[in-house]
């Protein structure tokens, strides 16, 4: 016997009851649609929220921490070699924040195959002078090109453009909240005072908005050269090297290596932001739980329709067995029906899920915290679609299995006698 025959019979049984099967299929469609839309949306939100952290956090940061010297004079004194010194009132001191040999280190890092890119930075604590008021702030000296490539700098620029930092001398991009406090428009000049008392005039070439208002109240960006000038340091002065890797998971191990090789402090993103993964995980978990619940409900729908169908088709099953179809053939027929419903319902569910995702993706969503986001975020990950169709097939198979088994066990004699 050809399998085609069983498919054919399954199809005829389906078509004879197409209204009920359609309703069962719609249950699956609904489940898959919601599953896809929910997961795409949740995942989009996750990416967005993670992006707030991950986009702007280096995978590894190299710097010199302020701490007491490891080798105090007394430990080097031969007479006390075997003793354990106890020093009171130990102070941090004299550790330079500058990274020595920053040039060669950056060059070496850029050649490392695991490294995506390197962004050197310096920070300067300054006062922004607004009439008689002095506002405490920070100027980050950045390599604009690296910052754009590695930390999506342009996504956060809400006025002006970042490349002006390189082309216009003594220019600055202000945090939006800071600019509002200073009442500084793009093109205006702001005055700053450094911690050593030097006064500078800087031209505002843009605003940025990070999404964290507190951050935007105090932060500003200038080119590395401008910042070095403000601090009165040489062109070699670098305090931070921020690194992005190809694979974020290599960060902890590489951080240790870099720290040891270059004799600096190295912090990896996992240590710096240990909590953010937990949030993503819980959100994903909830979406999966809801999606799978919907599918299970759809599964019960299929179970019902098949049970009903088998009850109605007792005679058909009995006569097929009398004609020489085996219990297995009958079981296959009903499983094909179940999977047919799953495939049809699941397939349309994928399309509808995609459609709903697109719709959500076009719903306006404005928030001051996320200047570049104009609509609700959606992650169009093909994996969700694969999981969706697999789940729909698995649930329909399981839902069909018991009824199909029942059908295969129907005793034709009992049915035929019963007439």
């Amino acid at each position: 016997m050809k399998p085609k025959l069983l498919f054919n019979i399954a199809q005829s049984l389906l078509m004879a009851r197409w209204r009920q099967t359609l309703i069962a299929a719609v249950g699956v469609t609904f489940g898959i649609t919601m599953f896809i839309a929910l997961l795409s949306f949740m995942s989009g939100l996750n990416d967005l929220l993670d992006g707030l952290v991950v986009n702007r956090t280096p995978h590894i940061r190299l710097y010199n921490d302020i701490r007491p010297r490891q080798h105090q004079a007394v430990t080097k004194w031969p007479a006390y070699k075997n003793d354990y010194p106890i020093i009171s009132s130990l102070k941090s001191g004299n550790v330079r924040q500058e990274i020595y040999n920053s040039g060669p280190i950056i060059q070496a890092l850029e050649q490392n195959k695991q490294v995506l890119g390197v962004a050197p930075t310096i920070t300067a604590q300054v006062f922004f002078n607004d009439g008689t008021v002095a506002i405490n702030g920070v100027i980050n000296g950045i390599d604009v090109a690296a910052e754009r490539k590695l930390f999506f700098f342009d996504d956060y620029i809400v006025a002006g453009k970042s490349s002006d930092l390189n082309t216009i001398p003594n220019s600055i991009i202000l945090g939006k909240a800071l600019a509002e406090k200073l009442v500084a428009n793009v093109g205006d000049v702001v005055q700053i005072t450094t911690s050593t008392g030097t006064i500078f005039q800087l031209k505002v070439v843009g605003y940025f908005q990070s999404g964290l208002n507190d951050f935007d109240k105090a932060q500003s960006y200038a080119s590395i050269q401008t910042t070095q000038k403000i601090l009165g340091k040489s062109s070699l002065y670098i305090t931070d090297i921020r690194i992005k890797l190809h694979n974020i998971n290599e960060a902890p191990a590489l951080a240790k290596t870099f720290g040891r090789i270059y004799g600096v402090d190295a912090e990896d993103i996992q240590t710096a932001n240990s909590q953010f993964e937990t949030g993503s995980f819980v959100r994903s978990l909830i979406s999966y739980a809801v999606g799978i619940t919907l599918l299970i409900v759809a599964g019960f729908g299929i179970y019902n329709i098949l049970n009903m169908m088998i009850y109605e088709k007792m005679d058909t099953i009995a006569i097929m067995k009398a004609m020489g179809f085996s219990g297995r053939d009958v079981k296959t027929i009903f499983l094909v029906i179940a999977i047919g419903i799953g495939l049809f319902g699941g397939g349309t569910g994928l399309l509808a899920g995609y459609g709903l995702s697109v719709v959500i993706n076009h719903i306006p969503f404005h928030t001051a915290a996320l200047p570049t986001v104009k609509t609700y975020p959606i992650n169009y990950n093909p994996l969700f679609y694969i999981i969706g169709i697999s789940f729909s097939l698995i649930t329909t198979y399981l839902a069909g299995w018991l009824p199909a088994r029942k059908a295969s066990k129907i005793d034709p004699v009992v049915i035929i006698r019963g007439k």
Partner: protein
Amino acid sequence: METILEAVNIVKYFYDPVKVKVLDGVNFSIAKGDFVSIVGKSGCGKSSLMYVLSTMDTDYEGEVKIDGVSMQRKKEKYLAKIRNEKIGFVFQFHYLLNEFTVLRNVMLPGLKLNRYSEKEVEARAYEKLQTLGIGELALKNAARLSGGEKQRVAIARALINDPDIIMGDEPTGNLDKKNSELVFDIFKQLSQQLNQTMLIVTHDPDFAAKTNRIIRMEDGKIVDEQR
């Protein structure tokens, strides 16, 4: 003469509500080309015997041999194949599948057997319908037919795989006089022209009288045989 079907000391019980012996040592054999009828009062065990002989009921003692092969302790799948290949069954109620056309109903056992291509099975089914005088119904939906027409379609279906034997359990029991005669004429024709082996349960004495051999049952036993 070549024996097609043999029943050896068939004993069957029903346990619900009390233990009843419905078949009490049935012995007989049917040769190729025989046209046999089984008669007996209602409740004497005719249907029970037919279900045992047709391999659908496996809960019995004794032995059923089809074409010399014992059906004892055979797997369900094997028995299904035997039914498909060697037995054509006609029930009192026609049991056509309403989801299909007449032609497709007749074709189904042939497609299951898969001895011929779908095209050939279709041609053969059409031919069987033609022989039974209902060729023009081929493309109608099975549900739309009259009782007599349905029973003739069921006979065509029973014939599709050229079975060793056709079994009928009161095939005319649900038909009016005219249709009963029509169906009987078909059986007669099958017997005379095609030498088809047939075993038909009936309570119609006229019907039985026209067959080659009558087996009379009483209380689960064969009590009389006439040629």
